[in-house]
């Protein structure tokens, strides 16, 4: 069930656009912000609020990689392993995550604290390796630094 706030926010978003389809992406963001992912029930609910057929909601939401269709941990780590980051040691960072938190790419820690997604370049090649934790950006990562940073996310 979406919270009253989310329903209200989606209603406001709907009014900004001429047709319901256009308001779908921002509405899905609202839900993802609240739940962390888009459950089938949530997709259905969004469809009902916006009067967009639920199958279409599913089609749109699965098209975009930034929408998640499985539950994730409280914090999402998006670690870049593209060329620059790889050269600067992102491999060893992956190892640290695995050793310390038991975290594999596309996996979630047993306590539901972190989920890990391996990214293809987040535009920080000059200060590689880099990652995003939720919406926070961290660069110049080292084995030590990444642990310190992650300890701040509970």
């Amino acid at each position, binding site marked *: 069930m979406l919270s009253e706030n989310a329903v209200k926010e989606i209603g406001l978003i709907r009014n900004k656009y001429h047709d319901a389809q256009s308001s779908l992406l921002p509405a899905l963001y609202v839900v993802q912000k609240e739940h962390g992912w888009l459950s089938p029930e949530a*997709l259905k609910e969004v469809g009902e609020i916006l009067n967009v*057929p639920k*199958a279409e909601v*599913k*089609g749109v939401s*699965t*098209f975009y990689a930034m929408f998640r269709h499985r539950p994730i941990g409280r914090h999402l780590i998006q670690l870049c392993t593209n060329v620059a980051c790889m050269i600067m040691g992102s491999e060893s960072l992956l190892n640290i995550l695995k050793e310390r938190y038991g975290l594999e790419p596309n996996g979630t820690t047993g306590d539901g604290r972190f989920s890990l997604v391996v990214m293809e370049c987040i535009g920080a090649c000059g200060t590689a390796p880099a990652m995003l934790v939720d919406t926070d950006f961290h660069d110049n990562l080292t084995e030590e630094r990444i642990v310190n940073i992650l300890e701040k996310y509970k």
Partner: protein
Amino acid sequence: MITVTINRKKIELEKPVTILKAAGMAGIEIPTLCNHEMLEAYGGCRLCLVEIEKMPRLQTSCTQYVTDGMVVWTETERVVEARKAMLEFLLINHALDCPYCDKAGECDLQDMVAKYGPTTGRFAEGKRRHPESFEDPIIVRNMERCISCTRCVRMCSKVQGAYAISMVNRSNKTFVEPFSGGKYDCEYCGNCLTVCPVGAIMSRMHRHAYRPWLIEKEVDTVCSFCGVGCSMVLQVRGNSIVRAVPKKGAGSNKGLLCNRGRFGYDYVGSSGRLDSPMIKRDGKFQRASWSEAFTFIADRLKKIKDENGGSSIAGIASGRCTNEDGYVFQKFMRAVLGSNNIDSVASFGYAQAQRFFEGIFGQGVTANSMRGIPNSDGVFVVGGDPTAVNPVLGLQIRAASGKGVPVVAAGYMPGLMIFATSRLIPRPFTETALLSALVTELRDIKGISGKGPFDILINDIPSVSLGEAEEVCGIPSEDMRSAVDALSRMTNPSIVIGRDILQQPEGQACLLLLAALISLLNSRIYLLSELPNEQGLVDMGCLPDMLPGGRHLSVESFRRRYEEFFGVDIPSNPGMGIMEMIEAAHDKRIKALHVMGEDLVYNMPDSAYVKAALSKLDFLVVHDIFMTETAQLADVVIPSLSWAEKEGSYTNLERKMQLVRKAVEGKGMEEWRAVSEISKLLGFDMDYKSSVDIMTEIANVSPLHKDIAYADMAGGECMWPYKGEPLRHGMSLEGIEMPDKGSLLKKPEKDRIYIGIDKPLFHFENLSRNSAALSSIAPEPYMNVGKALADSLSLAGGDSVSVSTGTGSLKLSVQVDPDVPENSIMVPDNFGDKGAYTIMKWKMNSAIKAPVADATGVTIKKIKRAAEEVAV
């Protein structure tokens, strides 16, 4: 004038069309996969690439319009090479399991690869895996075969309007899926099957049962599941129907079908079919020979006629039978038995509404082409959900809505809810309040000349303000106001009327108000028709007071015409209607009833009463294809032929006469043939060799069918067979009662829960119980209930409840639907002894001679919660 040259061929065009269309006109074939004549151009598969001079790149001919002077080449080396490359791409993730795939032999991709495609692919990385989905009872999805042409998705959303499937995920992981990922839970129209160019979406009904090249015969016929009469092709192998498919571009449906038509045919081959005449002796049915059965019937009918007169015998026809059956049956009743007691369940709504509107506006006023709906500038729907009763007609309304035409939906119609611009859902039985408010407003806006007799009548309709109506029907005034605004702007609207509007205490007032609306808006009328040949029954004179051709029995000149033709006198007094017959049987005023293909017990309201009435008869004959509950009460049962086993004609709700053709052999006998045999034994020679003879006779005697022949119908456009003979005039306003304001503004009783009939998309009368396919989609009876009532009774979807009236009770599962009118439940009448008719009381409305719901309430008790059911 546009001149375009395609492959050296000069083509002149009035209007710009796509290159693909222009090429088609010139007989030049361009291969396509994503393009389909029922869908808008998409430009996705890139197979229709062509070379256009002065354009550097190849263009998709399905989206590129021709311009004057354009020179196009469709089969150059460059084009062929490009097509080959496209096919190589498509095959990267295609299963290539043709030897095993049912589509092989009629697969567009297979054909195209055979023609253009590479013999080997260069992609070495392995194909994506996607297990075939069997989670649905009807549709099998194999996404390893899908080529992402999106035809199915476009069909489902843009044409069918069901929005059940979509393309999910991206790039090479894209595939088609319903929301659930497994079961479709859709309208099961199967139109996605029609458009799928490969074997990705297939029917489960005939999986691995045949190959396209093993089909021995294809029979053009029309569907028998509702009054639309969609053109379809029955594919036959041996003596069984393999598949029902639409006929490309033919009929009113133009390639569309609904779930009933596409999947419901399987009852024809059901093991429960009657295969021999049965005579009941000492309370037990015994097999009998045809002649034995006919002699038995003739003797008994003769005795009853001699002792009690022809008027003690009554006949009930069925809208499932053909025009020929109907004609012969009424002739048998009138000329042989001397009784005008002939009627059918068409008189529950269709025939009565038509009679009312024709009385005012003239004969043929409801004969309008369905295709006119999307071309009108507004649609008003009332009295039932067209998308369930007449699904393909419903699609015309959805198409209108898709074009931006305002659709005003008055009443519970779930299939139109997202398509309606105005949704007006009155409380149970308060349609009069809504309609009279609309009439009052529109009368003021439009103004009427006041000259014609009907104008005077419209003027006399009591004024009802929006506020007064709101108080009664519960629809906010502003909603009605916006509906009035929409209606008042329409200049050539369509009004679609279902039978529910009659089946209520103020049914006649509703008809009058609708007639006023029709007149004020100058609109075309469409009457929803639940049976394939309801119109035919009316035309063939299967009515107590009408002769074939829609002529009143009481008009002596017409009666004389038939009497001369038949060579005997016809009683001049109108006979009993179907409800009167049942009452008369109950009172023992009629002694014998001859039923042609109708399951009265379950297709008429109040099953217990009907059963009791039938049991009191001295003699009951039933022609049917199954041993129905009505047949079980009979003294003689004659096995009939289903629609797929006989020749004949149906007249659809547009009054288009269409041919029904024999696809397979059945073990029964056509109703007309059986009736003629009985007639011969009674001394009246009906010497029909085939249904053609009967149609020839109809064409000779019925003013409406003058000179009509099967050859005229074969083209599929034989609408309104009328060749200059005078039609009945309208403007007979006699007998129309002007309702007073009090009756228009009758409020529903407080705290009463009303029961209404739901017309499910997946069932057809009580016949569809014999279709395994339809039963697998909707296996059990249910009750639709609104959110507020569900909450107040603390019910949730999936709960089981017992619904009781004074007459009986039903165990039903709950479905919550916010659109169900306040304080009411909707229950289907299609599940035999679990249908709504078994517990509803009805009474006769003397003005319109139709049964009306006796608006008594029901009590609802929860038996089991949904969760407990799962635990069990």
